[in-house]
């Protein structure tokens, strides 16, 4: 989709309509698309809508309206910017826009719970004794893995070309932390209760909290990095700074 846009878009990358109302309207139209569509794709939409509104303004001017009257009439004729933006988001989304919110939430819950459970159970079964004895004498593998797994969605998020991933990444991060807490809690209650000291219990609870916190931080880092690297164009930021000066 992008290849055919590259040439004209590069020429008009910094083109802005002389009317502030039009650019403000475009901001509102693109608002639902921010953090959902890449910057380049939003710029293409802006350029297309801008050209249409420009045509409407010219037509109204030719019929005798003043510039400001023509702009207002054109924007009114174009319709409610937010609902248009949301409709565009539905058309441009891959999976999220096609599923009802409840189904999407359930899918996230199931995927997150299944992934978290299988990973933690796997790491427990395969590596517990070995890791506990040799590599991590002080930190249990539950904690180490719980902390590490939180970074996976963040890394996926950084590399993702599609807007559907951040939601999954955030959900997966939460569930990774939740599953770490749950498994540690269950182990504490069922298996190790008789062998565990109060100090160890406190340590495990702290480890659980740390695991969840690191997972949450990873998600926040992923979202921040995505916003900086994926949805926000650095050269646009520079252009804005130059304008302000």
């Amino acid at each position, binding site marked *: 989709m992008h290849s055919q846009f590259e040439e004209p878009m590069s020429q008009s990358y910094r083109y802005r309509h002389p009317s502030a109302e039009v650019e403000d309207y475009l901001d509102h139209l693109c608002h639902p698309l921010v953090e959902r569509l890449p910057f380049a794709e939003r710029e293409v939409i802006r350029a297309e809508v801008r050209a249409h509104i420009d045509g409407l303004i010219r037509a109204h001017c030719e019929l005798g309206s003043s510039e400001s009257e023509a702009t207002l009439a054109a924007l009114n004729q174009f319709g409610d910017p937010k609902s248009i933006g949301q*409709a565009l988001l539905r058309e441009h989304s891959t999976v999220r826009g096609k599923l009802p919110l409840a189904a999407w939430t359930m899918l996230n819950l199931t995927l997150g719970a299944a992934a978290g459970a299988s990973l933690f159970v796997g790491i427990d079964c395969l590596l517990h004794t070995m890791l506990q004895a040799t590599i991590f004498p002080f930190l249990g593998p539950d904690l180490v893995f719980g902390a590490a797994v939180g970074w996976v969605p963040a890394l996926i998020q950084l590399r993702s070309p599609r807007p559907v991933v951040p939601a999954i990444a955030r959900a997966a991060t939460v569930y990774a932390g939740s599953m770490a807490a749950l498994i540690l809690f269950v182990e504490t209650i069922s298996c190790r209760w008789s062998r565990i000291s109060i100090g160890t219990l406190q340590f495990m609870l702290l480890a659980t909290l740390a695991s969840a916190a690191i997972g949450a931080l990873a998600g926040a880092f992923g979202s921040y990095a995505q916003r900086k690297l994926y949805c926000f164009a650095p050269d646009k930021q520079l252009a804005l700074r130059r304008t302000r000066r």
Partner: protein
Amino acid sequence: MYLRRCGLDFGRELIKGNTRTVVLAVLNHGSQHGYGVAREIERLSGQTLLLKEGTLYPVLHGLERDGLIAGQWQVSIGGPPRKLYSITSAGLEELDKRTRLWNDFSLMLNRVIEGDGDAQPI
């Protein structure tokens, strides 16, 4: 989108379900950019079929995503670049299918309205 002259409440819903057909039909007459599609809809419907023009773009982008139309950017002199849409062969097939469906539906509805119960199945 609504019918200006009729002012019928169901007009909005009726057209809403057929916006894709309308856009494909307009592009079947020749390539257009979004602004041109809106003007052609007005012209071909005798200024009857009016729409909030922004609602065209989700439809255009959806049709493009489905491969029924193809967009091509054109740089215009003295103005912003415009995206020109053309109907594809898949779009022509889809338009044909939709036209037949619409014709069958309107025929069936006419029969019901006229009370022609003895008519042959379509």
